[in-house]
């Protein structure tokens, strides 16, 4: 996660629901009402890069209260967590958030969600195995004899298509790496045989 990492920057533009804890005259624009003050208790969806610091920052009074409190975004809501517990492979994570795991990691930095960590870990492990399976199938050993250009094609047919469409960015990267790895391995083996 470097400062220049594009995916990390895009992850931080994911929005989470926040509630302001005090009246702020100049921030009405955050709630689409630039002319009016932002009232305490207003719920606003804020991008992570803003919400994160506002949650952590201490407003400086004796109680050490934060400027805002936050809730879990719908992408990590109870429905989704229950569905993931039932079968991690059946949930299209991309529809929840293109940076699903990134969002989850950020949220766990902000709150102590022991169960969430376990669910996400199990989700990733289960899905990673499935991703690897598909990555090897596509243009891999199964496609022998169909010409070399088949191997470079990322297009997928059949039952796996729906699952692969639902991969989040991180899983997509994993898929591409697994796919390219299998392909290069195959190419190298063929090169060895020739000489």
């Amino acid at each position, binding site marked *: 996660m470097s400062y220049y990492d*594009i995916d990390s*920057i*895009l992850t931080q533009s994911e929005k989470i629901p926040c509630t302001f804890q005090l009246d*702020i005259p100049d921030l009405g624009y955050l709630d689409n009402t630039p002319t009016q003050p932002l009232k305490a208790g207003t719920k606003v969806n804020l991008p992570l*890069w803003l919400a994160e610091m*506002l949650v952590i920052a201490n*407003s400086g009074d004796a109680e050490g209260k934060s400027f805002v409190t936050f809730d879990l975004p719908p992408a990590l809501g109870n429905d989704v967590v229950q569905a993931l517990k039932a079968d991690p492979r059946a949930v299209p994570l991309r529809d929840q958030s293109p940076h699903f795991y990134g969002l989850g990691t950020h949220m766990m930095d902000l709150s102590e969600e022991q169960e969430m960590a376990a669910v996400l870990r199990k989700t990733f492990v289960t899905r990673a195995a499935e991703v690897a399976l598909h990555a090897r199938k596509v243009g891999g050993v199964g496609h022998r004899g169909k010409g070399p250009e088949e191997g470079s094609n990322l297009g997928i047919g059949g039952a796996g298509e729906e699952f692969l469409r639902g991969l989040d960015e991180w899983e997509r990267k994993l898929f591409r790496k697994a796919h390219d790895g299998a392909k290069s391995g195959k190419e190298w083996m063929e090169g060895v045989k020739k000489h």
Partner: protein
Amino acid sequence: MPMYGDLGNKLVQHAKRTQNLAHLPSYQTELVRAVAREVRDLDKDVASLLEPFQGSFDPSAEQATACTLLVNHLSMRRNKRCLLAYHRTRTDKLEELVWSGSDVLDLAGQQTGGGNGGPVADSGGSSSLSPQEEDYFRQYGDLLAAYKGQWTDIDLTGSLEPPRDLFIDVRVLKDAGEIQTEYGAINLTKNSQFYVRQGDVERLIAQGYLQKLG
């Protein structure tokens, strides 16, 4: 309603797309300017917010102002990160292009040939690089040339693929003038065909002057 940081986000989405492209898309001059302007506006806001306090601002007494300042500060910081990441993605790409032997002028040609920039971008053979990027490209090229110059018997930017054959057939796609080889000079005129040593012409193939046959 647009919010601070939205434009910066757009810029980063451009960078994301750039990562997956073989060529370098046009520099987003307008967007970069707009983000920089946003930073200046935010800075002005901060200055005017702090002005009445005459340098003795107490965050715990003025919580609402403190929060506004924090939001402004974070927005500026976010914009800075977006701007830097956008430019870094592009310079990474430029360095890659230098190593692979591309030419800035070639890039400008591709831009006009591709026709995806619309009639405005195409007129006057405009480059997809900003003037600063062209400078960067040129100077990085010089650096690389100086670095490569330390070894005369090895070509650092040569192909990593071991050649199957020492000699290959090539067709000349555009005039490249005369080149010197171990076996004498060859005059590369358009549409002519030669049987040459691969090592002698690798560069010209990468630059698109020659096409490898067979």
